[in-house]
């Protein structure tokens, strides 16, 4: 078999793939591609997980490390079976948010942060580059196997680097042709996906064919194979639990975060139901892929000469047995594995690079922003095409720099560990609303840095890190040794880098999320991601639906309010000559609707909303409702703010009221002082005036004694006033000390009546039997109250036969003493005032006091635990003294 034939077959195969891809695209465009959305196509497209690394490398891996290769299949199987709900959430969010790549997912979740997009893109490019190099290497190696045979016949083809360059260029052309033919908003590539599904079948068939040939054609049946395995070094291999768990976790995490896996899992997913099928079919595919790995490895080890590269057993075993056809099939299987991976990976990466790096730069260079036109479209396509070239160029460069020597599996694991750094930010973003952009950026950067330092750079061999640094750490800092952080040695480099990078990544992500504050957009996106199932339904497929005027009406009602929206729709329907609320969705109507909506939500949002409902239902109505609901939540939030501000103004009002009250008290205090001044100055005036009269001129004896009497009376009045004031201030300040003693109520009344005296001849009626009650209180103070009341009655009761009735009774368990006279009583308008200081009925001649008596009485009763009140409607003035309890 010649390499010319091989190249010819490869070209035929590629041409066939072209045809498949082209046909599928055409069908999809024509709307006849229902079968393209079959779950089995989706499942097969997931097989890009099985790259040349798994096709060739698994056998090599098994030959070197026994069953450890199973971890690479175990991880994805666990994800498909056990974590399908994470996948479902990813797929749902991918659709709801129109996610185009894993970088877009992270960027979108954390408030459309382009910084995060750039970080993840860089991570993905750097993490994927070794992997692409790996594919180039495997194709080159496999070609070299054939050309080595040729060399024996004297036919020499170009060297390995040249082969790799041609392969890279060829893949770039294929990818550009099918990955960037059109700028699909949803980034779906039916043609590519279908071609990949075909390739998936080819590689499965190839591997199974080689396996069946090895087991039944060479070894002579399963029994013989088992014996061969037992005899081979594979059976001597022990499970290393730490490495086993780490690698299983690594491959599971990589399955979620690898850009190409995200592309087929989420971006190319057209129906959530596809996941259900994939959750059992894909593990089955992986199982079949791994079924013959150990037999091929064991038989290869036993049959091929010592030193044969076990990574190529899949090829070299059939070749050694002279089965050229089978070898050809095997080559095509490996070729399929490599190409499908490179194509999808470079599509995914080019999307990221153009969306997050090239376009932002281009847009910022173009002042004035972008009007979305064909011009921009061309720029995007050009950016993607160039990006694909650059990505493959990087892969080729890495292949050249790394020397193409390292074992395939080792390169794969390095790549996995790099891209897995996205995991904390991704899972945190899906399930934790508290995750913030700052946290995600901190975690990603730290994890990425540790990966570069501890795994990526050392993988170049001694070219980057000298043996000195590897052994003693940079600048002799021991705990910074790239493969033995903190002096912990003995760990496998991959496990070491995985543990430390993810540990710091997750810790930084968590802590920085806690201490940073998310922007409103982050909050919104966080809620959209975490609660994606609450406000989106699993719409069936992405096929363009007929525009539903009803959907538009529902949305418009949410935004404009029911009446306004219905009025608009009915008017538009009427203008079209229709009845009811649902006009045809003509461009004129849509334009009008958009204009109306833009009044409420802004022009851009209105355009996007209408555009999305009309333009292929890329975002479901439910999603738009979710946006509206979020807006509602924002409104609620702002109404909470309003409440807060109301609370503040309530506090301010209370302060104002307190201030008013203080002002009032201050005014009262001024009035009180003014009143006291008046009460003191009045008797003082008489005293001064009369003493001057007495001093100045000799008077007759009668006048002299009369005026001296006035002076004396006024002096007594002044003294009494001062006593009362003092008494009141002591009572009001609460400084009074009570002298509690037992006494008969009657005796206290006797004392009070005697103290007042009976100048006016007022009749006092009492029922002494009722007064025969023992009381326990400050009897002097109580007597003071009684004196006030009796004295008031005597002063103010101007009846012809003044009479005061003192009546003791029990009311509601308390002893009350009523003082009722037969005078004119107190006018109703004055009642609220009578217990205030300086209040008195107008007649000064009779009053004699300063108007403090009732005020003092009330203070006393308060202090004693009793009460005094006026009883209206008793004929004359009537006061009720309620004695303290007990």
């Amino acid at each position: 078999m010649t390499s010319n034939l091989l190249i010819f077959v490869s070209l035929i195969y590629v041409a066939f793939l072209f045809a498949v891809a082209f046909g599928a695209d055409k069908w999809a465009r024509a709307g006849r591609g229902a079968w393209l959305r079959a779950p089995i196509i989706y499942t097969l497209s997931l097989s890009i997980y099985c790259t040349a690394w798994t096709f060739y490398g698994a056998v090599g891996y098994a030959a070197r490390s026994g069953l450890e290769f199973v971890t690479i299949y175990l991880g994805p199987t666990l994800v498909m079976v056990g974590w399908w709900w994470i996948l479902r959430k990813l797929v749902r969010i991918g659709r709801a948010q129109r996610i185009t790549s894993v970088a877009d997912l992270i960027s979108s979740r954390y408030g459309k942060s382009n910084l995060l997009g750039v970080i993840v893109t860089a991570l993905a490019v750097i993490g994927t580059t070794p992997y692409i190099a790996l594919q180039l290497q495997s194709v080159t190696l496999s070609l070299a196997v054939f050309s080595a045979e040729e060399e024996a016949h004297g036919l020499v083809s170009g060297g390995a680097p040249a082969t790799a360059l041609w392969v890279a260029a060829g893949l770039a052309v294929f990818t550009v042709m099918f990955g960037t033919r059109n700028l699909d908003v949803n980034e779906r590539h039916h043609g590519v996906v279908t071609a990949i599904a075909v390739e998936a079948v080819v590689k499965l068939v190839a591997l199974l064919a080689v396996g069946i040939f090895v087991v039944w054609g060479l070894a002579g049946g399963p029994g013989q194979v088992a014996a061969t395995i037992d005899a081979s070094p594979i059976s001597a291999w022990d499970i290393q639990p730490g490495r086993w768990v780490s690698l299983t976790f690594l491959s599971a995490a990589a399955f979620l975060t690898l850009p190409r896996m995200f592309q087929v899992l989420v971006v190319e997913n057209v129906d959530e139901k596809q996941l259900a099928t994939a959750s059992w079919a894909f593990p089955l595919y992986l199982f079949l892929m791994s079924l013959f790995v150990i037999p091929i490895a064991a038989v290869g080890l036993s049959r091929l000469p010592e030193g044969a590269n076990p990574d190529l057993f899949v090829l070299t075993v059939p070749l050694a047995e002279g089965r050229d056809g089978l070898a050809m099939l095997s080559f095509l299987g490996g070729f399929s594995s490599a190409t499908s991976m490179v194509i999808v990976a470079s599509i995914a990466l080019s999307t990221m690079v153009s969306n997050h790096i090239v376009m932002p730069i281009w847009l910022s260079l173009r002042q004035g922003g972008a009007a979305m036109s064909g011009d921009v479209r061309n720029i995007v396509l050009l950016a993607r095409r160039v990006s694909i070239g650059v990505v493959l160029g990087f892969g080729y460069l890495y292949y050249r720099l790394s020397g193409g020597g390292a074992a395939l599996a080792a390169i794969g694991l390095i790549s996995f560990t790099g891209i897995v750094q996205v995991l904390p930010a991704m899972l945190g973003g899906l399930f934790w609303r508290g995750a913030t952009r700052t946290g995600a950026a901190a975690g990603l950067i730290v994890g990425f840095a540790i990966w570069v330092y501890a795994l990526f750079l050392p993988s170049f061999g001694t070219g980057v890190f000298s043996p000195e640094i590897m052994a003693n750490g940079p600048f002799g800092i021991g705990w910074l040794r790239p493969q033995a952080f903190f002096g912990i040695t003995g760990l496998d480099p991959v496990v070491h880098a995985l543990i430390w990078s993810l540990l710091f990544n997750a810790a930084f992500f968590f802590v920085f999320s806690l201490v940073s504050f998310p922007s409103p957009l982050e909050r919104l996106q966080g809620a959209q991601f975490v609660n994606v199932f609450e406000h989106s339904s699993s719409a069936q497929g992405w096929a363009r639906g007929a525009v539903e005027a009803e959907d538009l009406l529902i949305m418009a009602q949410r935004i404009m309010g029911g009446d306004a929206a219905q009025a608009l729709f009915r008017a538009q329907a009427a203008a079209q000559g229709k009845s009811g609320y649902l006009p045809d969705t003509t461009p004129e109507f849509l334009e009008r609707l958009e204009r109306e909506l833009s009044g409420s939500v802004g022009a851009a949002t209105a355009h996007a909303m209408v555009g999305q409902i009309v333009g292929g239902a890329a975002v479901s109505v439910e999603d738009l409702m979710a946006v509206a609901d979020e807006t509602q939540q924002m409104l609620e939030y702002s109404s909470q703010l309003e409440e807060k501000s109301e609370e503040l103004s309530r506090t301010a009002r209370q302060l104002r009221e307190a201030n008013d009250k203080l002002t009032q008290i201050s005014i009262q205090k001024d009035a009180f002082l003014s009143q006291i001044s008046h009460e003191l100055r009045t008797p003082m005036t008489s005293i001064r005036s009369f003493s001057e009269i007495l001093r100045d001129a000799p008077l007759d004896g009668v006048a002299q004694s009369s005026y001296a009497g006035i002076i004396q009376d006024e002096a007594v009045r002044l003294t009494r006033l001062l006593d009362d004031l003092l008494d009141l201030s002591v009572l009001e300040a609460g400084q009074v000390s009570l002298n509690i003693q037992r006494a008969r109520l009657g005796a206290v009344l006797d004392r009070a009546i005697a103290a007042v005296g009976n100048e006016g001849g007022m009749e006092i009626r009492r029922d002494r039997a009722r007064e025969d009650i023992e009381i326990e209180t400050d009897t002097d103070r109580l007597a003071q109250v009684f004196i006030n009341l009796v004295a008031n009655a005597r002063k103010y009761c101007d009846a012809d036969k003044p009479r005061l009735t003192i009546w003791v009774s029990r009311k509601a368990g308390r002893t009350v003493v009523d003082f009722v006279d037969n005078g004119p009583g107190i006018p109703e308008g004055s009642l609220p005032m009578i217990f205030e200081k300086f209040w008195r009925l107008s007649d000064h001649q009779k009053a004699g006091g300063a108007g403090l008596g009732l005020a003092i009485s009330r203070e006393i009763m308060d202090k004693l635990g009793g009460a005094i009140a006026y009883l209206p409607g008793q004929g004359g003035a009537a006061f009720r003294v309620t004695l303290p309890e007990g």
Partner: protein
Amino acid sequence: MGKRIVLVEDEPNIIEAISFILSREGWEVTACANGETAAATVRKAQPDVVLLDVMLPGRSGYEILKDLRADPDFSQLPVLMLTARGQRKDRELAAALGVTRFMTKPFANAELVAALAELAG
């Protein structure tokens, strides 16, 4: 012929003291103890000067002053206001209402007599 004065005051002892002092100086004193009847008393007595207390039963001294000033007959009548509340705002209020002179209780008899004599011309 002595000067005529209306004395509006509710404290009987003060009425007695002021009446005594002024009579001794030859004044003809008409006393009024009630704010309600003060204006009528003034109208009837046609005094040369009015001595007005502030705190009165019925109407306050300020109200009486206002009534007097509102009457063209008494707009220029000298009024001496005599109050036991010597605060500044009382003084200002009285000035605003057109009082002729303002004195605070207690007073020196000689001072009061001199002031009234001056007001009565």
